[in-house]
């Protein structure tokens, strides 16, 4: 962090016109460009994935959204990144923080993310968080999706999460209500786990 601040300091001193802003922000609506740059700089200094904010601004630009809409989206994402990092812990990877922000955006609660980390302290949360967001996007209510992902957390490998998501999506595609599909697959998974341990379901 001190290194980053030092670099930012000498950039300001170097008289030749070096880009203090990420050059990609040159594409963004001039009316909000400086505000977006300030948000990304703050994020960078805090150790949050600033690139995700730049990408959000570029997405809005490519989709020809108006400046204020872009700025609002970048602000919202910055808040979600901050909240995700706080819930997941400061040693989380950039990808985990970004995936956590997406999960929050889809309706998960910060406590869900914190619980997930507690139940899976030593493994990457990239897949569980991704599956959480994807389930919600398919129509599973956020509470049900969080419940399912947390229930699997202590025993499921990443492949199990992906298989779970595939099965729920298939059931939904076949006409099952999303919440029911998630519940049914979760029960099936629990039965499988019990059987694997030699107990009767």
């Amino acid at each position, binding site marked *: 962090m001190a290194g980053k601040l030092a670099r930012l300091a000498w950039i300001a001193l170097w008289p030749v016109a070096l880009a203090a802003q990420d050059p990609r922000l040159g594409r963004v609506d001039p009316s909000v460009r400086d505000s977006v740059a300030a948000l990304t700089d703050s994020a960078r200094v805090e150790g949050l994935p600033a690139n995700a904010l730049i*990408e959000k601004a570029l997405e809005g630009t490519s989709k020809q959204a108006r400046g204020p809409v872009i700025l609002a989206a970048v602000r919202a994402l910055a808040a979600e990144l901050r909240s995700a990092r706080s819930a997941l812990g400061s040693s989380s990877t950039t990808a985990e923080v970004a995936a956590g922000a997406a999960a929050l955006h889809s309706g998960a609660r910060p406590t869900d993310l914190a619980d997930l980390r507690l139940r899976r302290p030593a493994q990457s949360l*990239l897949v569980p968080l991704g599956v959480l967001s994807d389930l919600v*996007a398919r129509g599973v209510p956020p509470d049900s999706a969080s419940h399912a992902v947390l229930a699997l957390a202590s025993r499921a490998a990443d492949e199990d999460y992906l298989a779970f998501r595939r099965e729920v999506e298939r059931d939904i595609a076949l006409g099952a209500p999303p919440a029911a599909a998630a519940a049914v697959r979760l029960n099936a998974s629990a039965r499988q786990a019990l059987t694997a341990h030699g107990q009767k379901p």
Partner: protein
Amino acid sequence: MSEHDRDLPDLIDRVARTLREPVATDGALDARIMARVLAAPAPAAGGAWWRWLRRPALSPLGAIGLAAILAGVLLAPRVRRTPAARPTLSEVQFVFVAPRASSVSVVGDFNDWNLAATPLARAGAAGVWSVSVPLEPGRYTYAFVVDGRRWAADPDAPRAAGDDFGTPNSVVLVRGAS
């Protein structure tokens, strides 16, 4: 500028000549490369699994499954939470069906949402477009743009929750060792 125009403006010519100069590399680089080569498995006889990845019918979901299997087979099974020094790249194939389109590109946070950066090419079957992109582990949001102006999500991939700008995005999850 015509293709064979060597009458470049002086400045550009000077830039080009500067950039054509050789660069210094670490003296041990060749040895490092060969050390990795000799540690790698011998070139596959038919490269069958790679061919499967390139067939147009494989959706990002299928590619994720394959990448997941590869990650399990080729990489250390113990997952670390700190980022690996050398993240593994996985080839992800994006496929879109648009028989009447004259151009299709994939746009997302892996190419700065740049409409020109990653065009799809017509694949074997009529109306099928595809491109293969190497991606590090992570979660990526993307969409297709048809004929430079029509935005479309990927019908075969999970939807990104909520859309901030009025058009929906899709998500691809690329797994790795960390």
